């Protein structure tokens, strides 16, 4: 209904957002133009400068507008303990939980041999350099509990062993308050494999 005009273009561009189809893109476009032009201008400016200035932290590879991200440059955090995660979103999630006071390393993915994603694509050479430098006491492997996430954790654990750095894997399984009979069998099986002495 909107051909190649600007409005049509806007709607089409909004569709690049996750969870946004043509219908909701159209609603957003009308809202911004009819009721909130000031908000639209600000959004456009912020998007532009964010996409130009936010890069990756030199140390942990998470999204950051500085060379070192907020977490890496926080001197109260333990720089010798590194939590390995798959995405910047995972950094946020683990940090929200508040149980971790070290720093992070973001892989931007996981090992995926069938897609040709190996150690190089995950920046493991950079992590290896840290292990060699001897400044790391412990790695905590918080990759996803998918087969690929586990393969990734295993590989990094082997690297840690090679350089004599202690590595541990976060526990996966029964959620807090979860009743066993409602938990899917895959999760339950995983929880059994990862059981520990009490």
């Amino acid at each position, binding site marked *: 209904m909107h051909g190649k005009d600007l409005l049509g273009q806007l709607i089409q561009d909004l569709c690049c957002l*996750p*969870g946004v189809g043509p219908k909701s893109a159209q609603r957003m476009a009308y809202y911004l133009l009819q009721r909130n032009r000031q908000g639209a201008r600000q959004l456009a400016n912020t998007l532009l400068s964010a996409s130009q200035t936010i890069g990756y932290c030199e140390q942990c590879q998470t999204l950051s507008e500085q060379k070192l991200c907020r977490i890496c440059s926080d001197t109260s955090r333990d720089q010798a303990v590194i939590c390995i995660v798959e995405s910047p979103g995972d950094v946020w999630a683990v940090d929200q939980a508040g149980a971790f006071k070290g720093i992070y390393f973001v892989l931007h993915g996981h*090992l995926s*041999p*069938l*897609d*040709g*994603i*190996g*150690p*190089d694509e995950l920046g*493991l*050479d950079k992590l*290896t350099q840290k292990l060699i430098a001897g400044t790391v006491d412990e790695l905590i492997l918080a990759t996803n*509990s*998918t*087969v690929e996430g*586990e*393969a990734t954790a*295993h*590989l990094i654990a*082997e*690297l840690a062993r*090679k350089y004599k750095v202690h590595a541990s894997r976060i526990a996966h399984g029964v959620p807090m308050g979860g009743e066993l009979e409602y938990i*899917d*069998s*895959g*999760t339950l*099986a*995983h929880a*059994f*494999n990862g059981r520990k002495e009490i």
Partner: protein
Amino acid sequence: METSVYLQPGYILQHRPYRESSLIIEVLTRDFGKISILAKGVRKPKSKVAALLRPFTLLSLSYLGRSELRTLTQVELVQTSPPLPGLALYCGFYINELTGHFLHKYDPHPEVFQLYQACLVQLSENSAIEPVLRNFELNLLDNVGYGLSLAFDEQHRRPVSTAKKYIFSADSGPVEALNGTVAGQTLLALHTRTLIGSETLAGAKKLMREVIDFHLQGKPLKSRAVIAKIAASLQSKDTPREVVGTDDLA
């Protein structure tokens, strides 16, 4: 062609995200060969199905449809497979890629399903991974019509001898030659599926690599390159490759 299939045993060979919240899985089924199934909405945070859709795990799948892409209606875990230990896990991905390459969609191969299943069991319990991989490669090729002639030199009309050297080609088999690069012993060990000894294993790997590459006609095996990278990253300078045992196995 069937429109709905109930409780079909299968293993996921590969999966890729589809649209916002779905997944397309490539499955090796017991009765229907390799098929593609759309698993709708399983990438939503609350989905319980996602945790089940794991490679190397025997699943029971129900699905609908006649098109290229079937639609998943139900999935159950048949049994929790023993986890593949480290190196074997990386090789499991290779087995998946190889199987995916050599099977055509919707072409039933119940024997390949059995082979695949047996291979996973062996990978989970066996410390000698290379013979397991070579046997799987050989048996897979046999079953898809690319079986190798390993024990008889057609050109000279005599059986392969352990003491001789051969030139080997995937379509015509071994030919005795003084400048041959393949040991008769390697050919016979492959033929009888009894690979032992580092020299024989190395020869067998080289030969099978050439055969597989010949059939793939230039299509790359991505997992092979990744496994080689993994092996290299774990390699230590002062330990010989053989001892570390993480030479690129595939």
